């Protein structure tokens, strides 16, 4: 089996799309965050750096909560975390 990119793997998982992000990141706070532990711990790699600016996209979130834990313990508490509304978001078929 060949290596798969994270995008290819997330493509195998079903998501019910929604408009309003369930996780918001105040990336002004990220400027002062040296470690940026979200970058290498998010299983969906939704946190990335673009020319030094931290960007986050909520589509593809599998709702594990890891970013909440790392951002509030080693990060700069920039992440605000809830689950998506009413059954939207990740929908596992295997689990």
């Amino acid at each position, binding site marked *: *089996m*060949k*290596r*798969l990119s*994270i995008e*290819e*793997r*997330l493509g*195998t*998982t079903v998501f*019910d799309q929604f408009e309003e992000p369930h996780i918001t990141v105040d990336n002004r706070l990220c400027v002062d965050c040296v*470690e*940026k*532990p979200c*970058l*290498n*711990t*998010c*299983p*969906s*790699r939704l946190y990335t750096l673009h020319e030094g600016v931290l960007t986050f996209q909520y589509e593809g979130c*599998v*709702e*594990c*909560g*890891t970013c*909440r*834990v*790392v951002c*509030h*313990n*080693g990060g700069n508490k920039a992440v605000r*975390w*809830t*689950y*998506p*509304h*009413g*059954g939207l*978001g*990740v*929908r*596992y*078929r*295997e*689990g």
Partner: protein
Amino acid sequence: MPDEKFDCIVVGAGLAGLAAAYQMATDGLQVLVVEKAKVPGQKNVSGGRMYSHALAKLIPRFWEEAPVERAVTREGVTFMTRESAFSIDFESKKLGDLHNSYNVLRTKFDAWFSEKVAARGAMIIPGARIDRLHIEDGQVKGVIAGSDKLLADSVVLAEGANPLLAEQAGLKPPLKPHQTAVGVKEVIKLGADVINDRFRLGMDEGMAQVFVGAPTSGLPGGGFLYTNRDSVSLGIVMPIDSAMGFEHARDKRRQVPELVEDFRTHPYLAKLLRGGEVVEYSAHMVPEGGYRQVPKVLAHNGALLTGDSAGFVINAGLTFRGMDLAIESGRIAGVAVKRAKDKGDFTRGGLKEYERLLKQSFVLKDMKRFRNAPGFLSNPRMYTTYPEMISDLFETLFTVDGEKHLSRKEVRQVLMRHVSPVTLAMDALKGVRSL
């Protein structure tokens, strides 16, 4: 939404919540289960093996009707370096005859369990995200979802590993990176016949295998492989503090999503999984802090903490348990709520029976017994030094070149290349004492 008042509202249709609801509905209580997924099970993930004993108390011989994948009859432990794998392989028909444990896929399994709960008379509202607990004068009296307020004499918190409501209400301290692991899993479709052949399994027989060393790039944590009916669940679990790997923050190999790819494409697994297809990618947190992480207070005024929300997980190195602890804690919560109702007292005093029964049960007894395991398992030598040492030793033993004659002295020299005799002896002693 119903406007009546329930005896109990259960937050979360995972195994803890469903077990609590099943117990209470069986006792004739008015129970409401609220679940954020559209169908119970669609947001639930586990590595993949459930020890049967806890659920069998509630539903005897559940495996005859439940959508279990395979009965585990084969157990493996593999110490892995980048190039080698040393395995302990145990196979016993007896494990299957005892119905000791089953590989499960939770979306199917929990959907089945929720139907059993509904058939007992509990009401289940799926697709409902609870925003906060409804608290009056320090007493939990229900839950709030958007503009809806749902009232109950008690709330069973079975929110899972990411317990937002309990944290928000101050019922438990926030999760810490050294007490919490992140698990990442790929379900890989192979076909039942291929699985039977490659893993040497009979029909409906299953395998559970854990891996130490290379899967987590030599950091604390490990890999797992569970066989399902026609797929395997493959993944890694690592403590969040070791996944944070600050000094390697820009090193792609240390990124969680890449570790599982390294693992799947390791020579040992690449051959076993040849021709397979990844059909789902998932991730979940695991509260691995053990007994010392469990909050002292589990029964609050009007609310009980169960399952992953309470930190009921045992990582004992060779056995990983969470599902059986979740089910038993849920069942006991159900018993405690019934007794509180009989007394008409839903304060902490009335619900304290929950803590007493938990202490008498295997949940807290087993957690206490393995209380030193998290400390032992945080020893970095377990993930680098020892897998390398084992690999070196067996490569030496199995290499014949007509010159070397392996003596006891040489074996000793191989071992000492990796670790001092004192360190080895002390680690072995700690292992025996804590596992």
